């Protein structure tokens, strides 16, 4: 399997994740999309690491995974707070910043 196969797969997953982020109404759904995108990034990192023999990709995907976990925890904490205050997690209705 060539590198292209992995990268294409990763690009597809990334695009799917982007689609989810763009279209989901539920804040948690958006977070899921973000997870997919980050996951695609990880595939890229690991694939490059494998194909170049450079360890950096692995280490960085480790970092990515850890940061993602922190991000998810924090993001969900925010979602919970929002839910407590606004009684909704619909991203469309969280538009206090509307101009």
């Amino acid at each position: 399997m060539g590198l292209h196969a992995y990268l294409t797969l990763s690009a597809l997953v990334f695009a799917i994740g982007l689609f989810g982020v763009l279209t989901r109404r539920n804040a948690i759904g958006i977070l899921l999309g973000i997870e997919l995108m980050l996951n695609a990034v990880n595939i890229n990192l690991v694939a490059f690491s494998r194909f170049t023999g450079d360890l950096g990709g692995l280490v960085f995907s480790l970092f990515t995974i850890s940061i993602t976990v922190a991000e998810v925890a924090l993001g969900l904490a925010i979602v919970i707070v929002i839910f407590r205050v606004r009684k909704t997690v619909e991203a469309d209705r969280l538009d206090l910043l509307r101009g």
Partner: protein
Amino acid sequence: MIVETVGFAVVAVVLLASSLAVVLTKNLFHAVLYLAAALVSTAGIFLLLASPFLFAVQLLLYAGGVVTIVVFAIMLTERLVGERIAQTSRDIVNGAIVAAAVLVAVIGFLVQAPAMTPPATAVAEQTVAIGKALVGPFAVPLELLGLLLVAALLGAVYFARAED
């Protein structure tokens, strides 16, 4: 070689299908489960890429951790027991167009890139190598990561604290 190709095909199909399901299914809980499937199949990809350590980390942190947390959040935000959590999507066409555009752009790069062949053997003693790298050239990022995690932990605790 055959085994690897077949394995890749299977895992890729599962990954893509579950990814699509994540963004398309109406049931949020199902979406999380599909995400878990996607993450596990990603872990399979890692195995194919001869990175068992990352495979384990992916399972442990992502599938075990992230999914659990997400489920937890669903539990807390939706009514504990009640009607199914339906979730709708908005601007599906726009999102699809933009996502497709990004995909085409990235693929555009890919087709220009030269093909690469992997080194005959994967990094030997990968785990040891990663460990040494983490405390060697990547020591500072590692410490920063620790700092970030502490900050995230504090932030999460602050957000989740009981209302006074």
